[in-house]
């Protein structure tokens, strides 16, 4: 099992395009991946399900925890971490 805790620094949080990118990235991996919003204290949800990810209500500045378990868990965590840390290449304008 691999896990990482990250702070959302992009403008809109896990919403709109960032949520879509997050889910699309998670779906590339075979491992089970969950994500939860530590700031709001939500239970973990399926990181490959956009509706579930949206219900985290993860806004700018919130902390999220991503957990991956499976054959490619390390790569999955690395990819999601890179995505969040790049702020989803968010188009602010």
């Amino acid at each position, binding site marked *: 099992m691999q896990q990482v805790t990250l702070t959302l*620094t*992009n*403008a*809109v*949080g896990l*919403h*709109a*395009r960032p*949520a*879509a990118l997050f*889910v*699309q990235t998670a779906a590339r991996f075979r491992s089970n991946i969950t994500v939860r919003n530590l700031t709001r204290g939500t239970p973990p*949800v*399926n990181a*490959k*399900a*956009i*509706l*579930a990810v*949206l*219900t985290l*209500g993860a*806004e700018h500045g919130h902390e999220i925890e991503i957990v991956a378990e499976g054959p490619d868990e390390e790569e999955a965590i690395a990819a999601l971490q890179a*995505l969040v*840390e*790049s*702020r*989803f*290449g*968010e*188009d*602010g*304008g």
Partner: protein
Amino acid sequence: MSRRLQGLPASPGIALGPAWWFRRAERGPLRARGEDPAVERARLEAARQQAAAELAALQEANRDRLSPEELAIFEAQTLMLQDPELLAQVEAALAEGASAEAAWSQAVEAFVAQLAALPDPYFQARAADVRDVGNRVLRHLMGAPEEPAMPAHPVIVVADDLLPSETVRLDPQRVLAFVTEGGGPTAHAAILARRLGVPAVVAVGSALRAIPDGATLLVDGEAGWVEIEPAPEVIRQARARQARWQAERAQAEAVAHEPALTRDGVQIEVAANVGSLEDAQEAFRRGADAIGLLRTEFLYLERTAAPTEEEEVAAYRALLEAMGGKPVVVRTLDVGGDKPLPYLPMPSEPNPFLGVRGVRLSRQHPDLLRQQLRALLRAGAGFPLRIMFPMVSTVEEIRWLRALLDEVRAALAREGIPLPEDLQVGMMVEVPAAALLAEHFRPWVDFFSIGTNDLTQYVLAADRTNPAVAGMADGLHPAVLRLIRQVTAAAEGTGKWVGVCGELAGDLQAVPVLIGLGVRELSVNPVRVPEVKAAVRRWSLQEAQALAEAALAQEDAPAVRRLVRDALRPVSD
């Protein structure tokens, strides 16, 4: 009985016509129990596939009409159709014998309720997107009623709010205006209205619900109000204003391709601000004399790696060709902490508008700028190319930029690559310091283009995206005008020109003031080109100069606007 409802102005113009409420289709009762689960499963699968195909077609067909944010909603909706959690809930209900439509709609509504309960309005707004995609599937499952079609005659579209998937269903030919209960000037309906060139009033509030279908409405998109069943006298006046407005527009469009000369024969270049090839084509059709601001971010955003030099050359060449030999001012990459790029890591900044952006970022990543300059010089051979640097605040920066450009040019010359002969290099003036010291920047540039949006918010310390202070950020504030005057004074008599590429350039009240201050190029949204040209032709340079002189002496922006209105009155009546 007439009643006037005040909202927010979202797109200018006057319209008179019948109200048509945009309603969502009413559906019959859902069939709760299904046939065999396998049958229901297959029906749902087919409906989801049809919905996905529709979404793909909508995205494709409306690529030019919708903003990237709106297109992103369709993309998210496509993902929602395949959401494994949603499908798991649907499957559980199907296994218990529910019909496909009941299983689907219960699962969708469960997510809608969860999203609507979130505190952040951004997330709440996603609930509407989920319901929208849910309804799309239900329509296929139930062979459900098509959404009510627009009447055959032109109407004023009245709605609580409009989703992108709904605005694309409207026939633009039959929309006279938009009036919405909610939303803001950046709502989908407002964006569409501006693109279609029809008036829009938004955020009217729940009073709007009192409007019955077919009621005669008068919409003033400049003042931001809608009047229900206006009195005959008001209608007569409005008809006259509407006719005059349309005639002015038609007249303006008829001569949009002619140069814009003041009454005493001084040519003002009316150019367009564009951010894509499609925008440039639109600008050319509308009669723009040039592209006054090409935002190159479209090449860099929403991708995981930087564009290659060849990609850039092809994109710039296509844009230069689309303008048929007219000048194109290309702004080099202008991003900052508010719109970071995945391949250009930037620390999060508490105040990105005062942080590393524009050329400040380029200095940290000179390779990206070097490649952009190479691509521009390669693409620009044989075209009137203008290169412009954003967010320059010190003379040392512009010296560094010129040195980099010289280095790139020399390298290309050594490689035997043809270079543009008609090249000018300029800078944007957004930072007050650059305006105040314009004469020190002058030796390094061929032109200045004033970015009044940023200049205004820096001068007045008012964030234009913060509704609480956005009203203070009026570019006609005398403090901003005095800075513009500093720049034009520095350029005067030197053969260098000054343009304005902020929203102020397309503000018809600002046009004479800017010309009077010595601005010779106005770069505006492509659809505004004909009107701005018409506004230029209304004034003589002498009148504009007198007006500008008086404007500089006012104490605030409303006083400047009163001054212009008073000066306009004898001309327009």
